[in-house]
């Protein structure tokens, strides 16, 4: 049975909110505990899936944003 605090630490670890010392602790724990390592892997894969499912705006939409910024001074003088 994995403690809830450890499970929550895995979430912080995946989202890079742990410090160096905590990272070493979690990585060591994952080496020693197969079920913890499995849970970490599953969580990481799920997060990767969410990232991969992000939508991408068109290049023209981004170009319009950058053009607006470049011409800001012209807009603000009007």
């Amino acid at each position, binding site marked *: 049975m994995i403690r809830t605090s450890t499970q929550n630490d895995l979430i912080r670890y995946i989202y890079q*909110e742990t410090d160096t010392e905590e990272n070493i602790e979690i990585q060591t724990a994952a080496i020693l505990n197969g079920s913890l390592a499995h849970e970490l892997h*599953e*969580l990481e894969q799920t997060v990767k899936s*969410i990232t*991969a499912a*992000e939508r991408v*705006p068109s290049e023209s939409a981004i170009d319009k944003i950058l053009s607006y910024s*470049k011409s800001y001074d012209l807009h603000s003088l009007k």
Partner: protein
Amino acid sequence: MRKYEVSDSQLISLYKNGNEDAFAELVSRHKNKIFTTIYMIVKDHDLAEDLLQETYVKVVNTVKSGRYNEEGKFLPWVSRIAHNLAIDHFRKAKRYPTIVMEDGSNVFNSLEFSEESIEDRQIKEDTHALLRELIKELPDSQREVLMMRHYMQMSFQEIAEVTDVSINTALGRMRYALINLRKKMDKMNVAYDKNIYPE
């Protein structure tokens, strides 16, 4: 999770001094997350692009007029603007998100997956669309934390404060959100295909 050599804060400073390349980097760095935040609410690609542009018009106006608050983080700030604009859109239109069909691939997706077959690309896009639907099916409290942490890049401490819960509750909700998503993906046979989700 990516770490950048030049921080958002440094890019903002450069942008304040007129460096447009710094702004282009900021936009490029976060465009997918902010666009997805909007898209998850409005479910319409063209409308989401309009709101993305509206979001950045506010960003440009705020930064260039010297009103940007350095204390906050850039992405959570922009994400909040985007989120509010998307919600405002429905308030103004006096309607709520309804089921809208996905609008298929776009120019960027086509370029990104140019070496794949049309069929492979369609499978990938269908899988991603399904995952976004599964996210929407999560319980409100779990979806809220997932959106705030993953797309809006708020820390768990910030999420705990905004949602008025302990940090452990916020972390627990995120954990259950991920576990539930994984279960739903397994149930729908959305495999962890390395071709779909590269390492």
